[in-house]
């Protein structure tokens, strides 16, 4: 067994270390980092654009390159979130919540360094799982039926209800708004279109990228215009890039939790890195001793979600390569490469084409090490982005967002959508409504709805299944406990509000 394992690793390394594959790996991860950094232009659009080239490439090289773009973009995604409050990708939107405050405190370098480390950690866990427990993990993923998915999403949504500070009522309103936007389009269960107003462009629903870029990107640029005073200049010293012992100490457990959660969501087709990053943030806030630090520059709030989304990215290859079932549009592209080269993706691929499977897996190690090497020296350069005057930086960002969103589907309609959501985001911000819960509602809501209705169809309308299936029951009970605890905690916290507000702020400053 162990002998076979090492043979496989050796086989994989010999494939991955061929000059050609190494080159495509470098190309993929470099490109991935850059498209990750640029708001709007994401992995899916880039992979789609490069897909035609893969017709002429060896399938292993093609997958190594496309996969590099995919996980590379997760490294880059948080850079703009942290520095500019503009997420590079939807899954790094949550990194804005604490990353941007860190940058405002002059700790951008530390945030970037720690997210890079977290990303590497998360990816490593994902790859290790793929190498060792791929089969049992696939079995676990398959055991999840609609009822389990639904219960898990309920747990996720309740856990994530703490995601923003301030008024809980406003946060709930935004979650509901998100769910409402999420139901736009063709209802899979009945085939009816909902809230499309006869527009064919809305049949497939609202684009996640357009929503995220509008709510976070355009809104940020617009609101900064009012207060813009030249640049965000800050003193960039070497010291500001080196994490303190306290930062490292605080980041360990979030990395472990983030990677576990991220890997778990990765093996579940259809869930995706955005959900993983939001829920991971929420968990950190739940378990934190001082949850009031969150939203004000807590390192855990940046590291955990970035670790989680990288773990998800890597773990998503498990169902894709082991079962031949793609969990997302990007994974479907990877499978597309196999199919056009005459390889039937699925269980037989690992045994029939071990050099391909193990070559791709080992290239993930190479790619992630490269990303680490590429990203850490780049931090100093990225931070210098902040010295670019607003009047150059922001118009450029808007152009990139529009190009990026257009390129996902080649749809001008999506560009109009980002403008609309930009206005919505700006309005929400001005009125003190948090936008992060809206994004969460948008991704989780439709998922929950479909799984719920599917469960009802299969159980002939009986609610019992949620409690009779053990895994589903566990999630529901956890969700109920969490809800009860939140209500109790909220009730208990009502009294201290009368105390002078300074006492709470002091602890934050003391950090």
């Amino acid at each position, binding site marked *: 067994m162990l002998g076979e394992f090492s043979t496989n690793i050796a086989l994989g390394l010999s494939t991955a270390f061929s000059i050609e594959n190494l080159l495509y790996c470098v190309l993929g991860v470099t490109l991935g980092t850059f498209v990750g950094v640029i708001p709007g232009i994401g992995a899916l659009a880039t992979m789609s654009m490069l897909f035609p080239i893969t017709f002429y490439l060896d399938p292993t090289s093609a997958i190594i390159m496309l996969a590099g773009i995919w996980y590379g973009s997760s490294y880059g995604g948080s850079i703009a979130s942290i520095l500019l409050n503009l997420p590079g990708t939807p899954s790094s939107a949550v990194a804005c919540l604490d990353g941007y405050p860190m940058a405002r405190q002059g700790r951008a370098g530390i945030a970037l360094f720690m997210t890079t480390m977290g990303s590497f950690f998360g990816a490593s866990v994902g790859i290790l799982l793929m190498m060792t427990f791929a089969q049992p993990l696939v079995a676990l993923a398959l055991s999840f039926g609609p009822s389990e998915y639904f219960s898990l999403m309920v747990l996720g949504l309740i856990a994530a209800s703490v995601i923003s500070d301030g008024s809980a009522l406003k946060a709930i309103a935004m979650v509901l708004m998100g769910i409402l936007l999420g139901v736009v389009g*063709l209802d899979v269960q009945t085939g009816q279109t909902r809230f499309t107003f006869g527009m064919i462009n809305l049949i497939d629903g609202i684009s996640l990228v357009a929503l995220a870029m509008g709510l976070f990107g355009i809104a940020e640029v617009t609101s900064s215009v009012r207060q813009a005073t030249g640049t965000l200049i800050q003193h960039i010293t070497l010291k500001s890039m080196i994490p303190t012992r306290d930062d490292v100490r605080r980041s360990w457990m979030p990395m472990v939790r983030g990677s576990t959660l991220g890997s778990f969501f990765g093996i579940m*087709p259809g869930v995706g890195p955005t959900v993983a990053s939001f829920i991971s943030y929420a968990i950190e806030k739940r378990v934190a001793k001082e949850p009031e630090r969150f939203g004000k520059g807590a390192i855990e709030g940046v590291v955990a979600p970035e670790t989680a989304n990288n773990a998800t990215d890597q773990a998503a290859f498990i169902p894709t390569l082991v079962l031949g079932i793609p*969990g997302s549009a990007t994974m479907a592209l990877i499978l597309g490469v196999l199919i056009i080269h005459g390889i039937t993706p*699925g*269980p*037989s691929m690992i045994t029939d084409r071990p050099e391909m499977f193990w070559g791709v897996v080992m290239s993930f190690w190479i790619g992630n090490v490269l990303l680490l090497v590429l990203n850490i020296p780049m931090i100093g350069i990225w931070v210098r982005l902040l010295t670019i005057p607003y009047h150059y930086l922001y118009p450029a960002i808007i152009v990139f967002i529009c190009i990026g969103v257009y390129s996902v589907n*080649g749809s001008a309609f999506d560009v109009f959508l980002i403008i609309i959501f930009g206005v919505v985001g700006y309005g929400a911000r001005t009125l003190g409504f948090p936008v992060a819960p809206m994004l969460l509602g948008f991704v989780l809501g439709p998922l929950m709805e479909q799984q719920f209705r599917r469960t009802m169809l*299969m159980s002939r309308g009986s609610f019992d299944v949620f409690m009779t299936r053990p895994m589903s029951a566990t999630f529901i009970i956890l969700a109920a406990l969490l809800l009860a605890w939140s209500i109790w905690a909220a009730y208990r916290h009502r009294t201290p509000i009368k105390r002078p507000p300074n006492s709470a702020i002091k602890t934050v400053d003391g950090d």
Partner: protein
Amino acid sequence: MVNKQTKIGRFLLLSTVSCLALGAQSALAAACPEGFPERPINFYVGFAAGGGTDSIARTLAQAIEQAQGWNIVVENRPGAASAVMAQSLLNMEPDGHSIGLGSSDTLVWNPTSGDLDFHYSDFLFLGSAMDSWNSFAALSTAPFDDIASLVEYTREIGMATVAVAGFNQTLVVEQLADQYDINLVPIPVAGSAESMMLTLGGHVDATIQGVAHLAELESGNMKQIASVTSHRLPYQPDSPTLEEQGATALPIQSVTVLMAPKGLPDDVRICLEQVVDEAVNSEIYHNLMVSFNNEALNRGPEGVVDLISSRDARIRALYDNPAN
């Protein structure tokens, strides 16, 4: 001298012949009007990059570029199962430079999408590239092997579920349930990935699949219950069709069509029809079909219209009858 002249003459003749042959290459089978195309031709694909239709479009484009020396730009216009592409095609000039590739079933009426802004008669069909094959499949451990035993099983336990992606698959399950008066419930999902997860996890009893189940069939993990096509499938020659098993459900007949906006000049239309037919019958396209476990098949312009209109009429009839 004479000799030399003959040589020159032969040389001239040969060059003329080869010039003709070169020129003839574009006129060989495809008689195209002078000066067509004036600029690169656009292929608008109704699905995202990396999907089956996308690969078909790119391979056909490659075949045409090789055979005719034209430039073809492939652009993806995904959305609503190629309805977004179809609608955008309506607004384009019918000059032969804009060609759409999508699924024929998107142009067939269905009871839920009555509000689309186009009808199949708004387009001109240049031909088709491939028939989509669907199969009714289940885990190998399922206690039924064909439609008859599935019906039996459903009656016994009271209800059986079938994961389906898309209206045409749902319709097959509904018709089976009607015909045998059994509680066979379609479980609609967003795509074949989801229906495979539900099937492999044992959460549903069966599924209708295009190609996603082929690897599982090969490994013996799944079995085919029926071919949801009008003929048996080459990769499962022993699996009878619905019709052979006595089921009256309409088989799914969906093809990848090449279409243009209506009003194409006749000479351009004939040229493009021939060019498409040549490309579908080219070697590189055949190789792609081998990796798809499918066959290159051009039903021709009339064949495509017949298929769409008859399917359209039959589905309308299914929904009109109960009302009568």
